[in-house]
């Protein structure tokens, strides 16, 4: 089989993934080297607290064309993916989550993105049956609002598994917004986008999922960073409320002049007050979300900091070094500890 001349980069964010990084790396590397003449795998460590980094450093001595970018602290997967996309050099970049996305799909996806001259190809997973009905109706509400009113054009149940063309990678890395949701960016930058449906794999017995509160917060964030539609809603609400208040004020004035001895309507007054406060607080909440957003964006800070970058360095003299593995104090101690475990001795 001849290798494709297309240069493919794969980006995967890592966070406490020491348990699955090796099978992931093995599979991706195998798929890439059997299909492409030039490829790279960029792993972005989002400040793991387990042994992910030493594990990967060890793997770098075994696998070629792999890079590890270590972020200075935990920035979250969106920023980690951004750091990866800023660094990839391929004609196409494939972003995948190591625990759930199947590397075997890469060749077909790349072939499709190439033949249809696609900007971004986004993965869609089937509805998860084990999610609670509350969770699912929340998700439905989110997509209904996001697509119907905010015109975000978000395909339902998209995952982070995506193929980006070089053009769209460049477009996305020019966006320096602090609030980053790649699925909303994908729509924003345009180009020719499409989706594909796939069945996620489970590298972990117990997949990591989002809690309900976390999901709701994410929903709010995504809306706030990508559209001002809620602000416009607040405007309409404020206008209609003020109109209503004006009418009411007129009515009260007239009633006071004409009628005598108007009884104080306790229930009516309190109802009116609480309704007004309710609406006002909603407007305030919307405003404060956007003020927070403004503050975040106006700081102009870098999106992330890189603590270090490591590339594959396969020491070829390993065969000659088998007989010295057991050195307790070598002058090159650091390299010694990074040596890959070797097969049977010579």
């Amino acid at each position, binding site marked *: 089989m001849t290798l494709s001349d297309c*240069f493919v980069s794969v980006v995967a964010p890592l966070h406490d993934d020491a348990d699955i990084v090796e099978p992931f790396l093995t599979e991706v590397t195998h798929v890439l080297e059997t299909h492409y*003449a*030039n490829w*790279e795998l960029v792993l972005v460590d989002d400040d793991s607290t387990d042994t992910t980094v030493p594990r990967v450093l060890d793997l770098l001595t075994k696998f070629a064309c792999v*890079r590890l970018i270590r972020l200075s602290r935990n920035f979250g997967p969106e920023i980690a993916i951004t750091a990866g996309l*800023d*660094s990839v*050099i*391929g*004609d196409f970049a494939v972003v995948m989550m190591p625990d759930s996305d199947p590397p075997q799909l890469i060749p077909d996806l790349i072939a499709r993105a190439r033949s249809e001259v696609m900007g971004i190809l986004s993965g869609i997973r089937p509805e998860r049956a084990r999610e609670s009905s509350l969770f699912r109706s929340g998700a439905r509400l989110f997509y209904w609002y996001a697509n119907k009113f905010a015109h975000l054009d978000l395909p339902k149940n998209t995952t982070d598994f995506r193929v980006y063309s070089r053009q769209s990678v460049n477009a996305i*890395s*020019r966006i320096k917004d602090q609030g980053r949701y790649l699925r909303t960016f994908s729509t924003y930058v345009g180009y020719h986008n499409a989706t594909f449906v796939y069945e996620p794999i489970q590298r972990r017995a117990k997949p990591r999922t989002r809690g309900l509160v976390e999901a709701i917060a994410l929903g709010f964030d995504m809306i706030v960073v990508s559209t001002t539609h809620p602000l416009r809603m607040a405007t309409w609400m404020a206008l209609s409320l003020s109109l209503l208040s004006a009418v009411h004020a007129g009515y009260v004035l007239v009633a006071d002049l004409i009628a005598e001895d108007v009884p104080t309507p306790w229930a009516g007054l309190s109802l009116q007050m609480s309704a007004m406060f309710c609406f006002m607080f909603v407007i305030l909440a919307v405003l404060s979300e956007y003020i927070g957003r403004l503050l975040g964006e106006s700081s102009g800070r870098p999106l992330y900091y*890189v603590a270090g*970058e490591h*590339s594959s*360095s*396969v*020491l*070829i*003299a390993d065969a*000659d*070094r088998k*007989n*010295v593995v057991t*050195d307790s104090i*070598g*002058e*090159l101690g650091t*390299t010694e500890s990074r040596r890959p475990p070797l097969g049977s001795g010579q």
Partner: protein
Amino acid sequence: MSRAAEYDAVIVGGGFYGSHLALDLRTRRHWRVLLLEREHSIFQRASYANQARVHNGYHYPRSLVTGLRSRINFPRFVEEFSDCIDRSFDKYYAIARLSSNVTAAQFRRFCERIEAPLEPAPPAVVALFDRDRIEAVFRVREHAFDSVALNRAMLARLHDHAIEVRLGVEADSVRALDDGRLEVACSGAEGPETLSATWVFNCTYSRLNRLLTRSGLASIPLKHELVEVPLLDVPETLHGLGITVMCGPFFSVMPFPPRGLHSLHHVRYTVHYSWQDRSDAAWIDPGRPFNGLARRSNLPYMIADSTRFLPEMARCRHVDSLWEVKTVLPRSEADDSRPILCRRDHAIPNLVSIMGAKIDNVYDVEDYLAAALA
């Protein structure tokens, strides 16, 4: 009664350091000097296949000593080898926005501190770069040397000073005789022979440890890298320009005067693989891994990455690639400094191993030796 040695000094290795040292010992101390070189002429290996950069300090913003020494040695080298220096191009340093270890402001401050000339690049040059990825571009004063011209000039000077040069001869081992002289066993086209000398200077770069281990001496921990230097025919927009992107996993595209082309170096992709000499293991012949593994060019990677910073790189035409063994001190892995190794052997004090990384810092080691030998 001790017999006089045939030579005051035998210098093993006709690279730039070995040849220059031969001249220095001859002119400064009037020694009888012999220079041995295993290739068919001097400067065939690492002195040829490299970036041809005459450092002026800019390259080492994180090591003040290395930067400053380059800064001091630069005019000395440029003056001594005036005819071998290519001044026909402008040199620019671009500072990357992301992943750079220095910012533009820090780089400017560093250059002020070592008094290296620096000015903003003209707009036409700045326009060549992707401004989202490059923070600033500076014009600097840095040159390239022409190693073929350098070879000719050096051979003429060795001849003028009546220094004996034997080509195609490799020193295999050094042994201390009872009378203090050193015996050097060599092999060449004319078969094995032995020479005697008072001093032996081991300037064999990637083969330093070959001579040491064959002499029964402890080897020096050294790291070797197989490097690929692609030679490119650059588009006319890059003619007359030398560009270095600082300071991290970036690249440098410099004129390569002997061929009239540009050489491309990339921090991440130039090195194909590496290995280490260890004091407790047999010496690994650089010739073996060098020839043993398939050479698959890393050029597509270098071009793909450099195009992101300098879009014109996509229009370069690959002419061919030089492959060479580069040797570094493991200690320079951790920082930016590039010290010169100058080590007298414990068992044979008159055997001195010398290894330098940058051509113009040769004066440092000679000044150091002059003091040590005095």
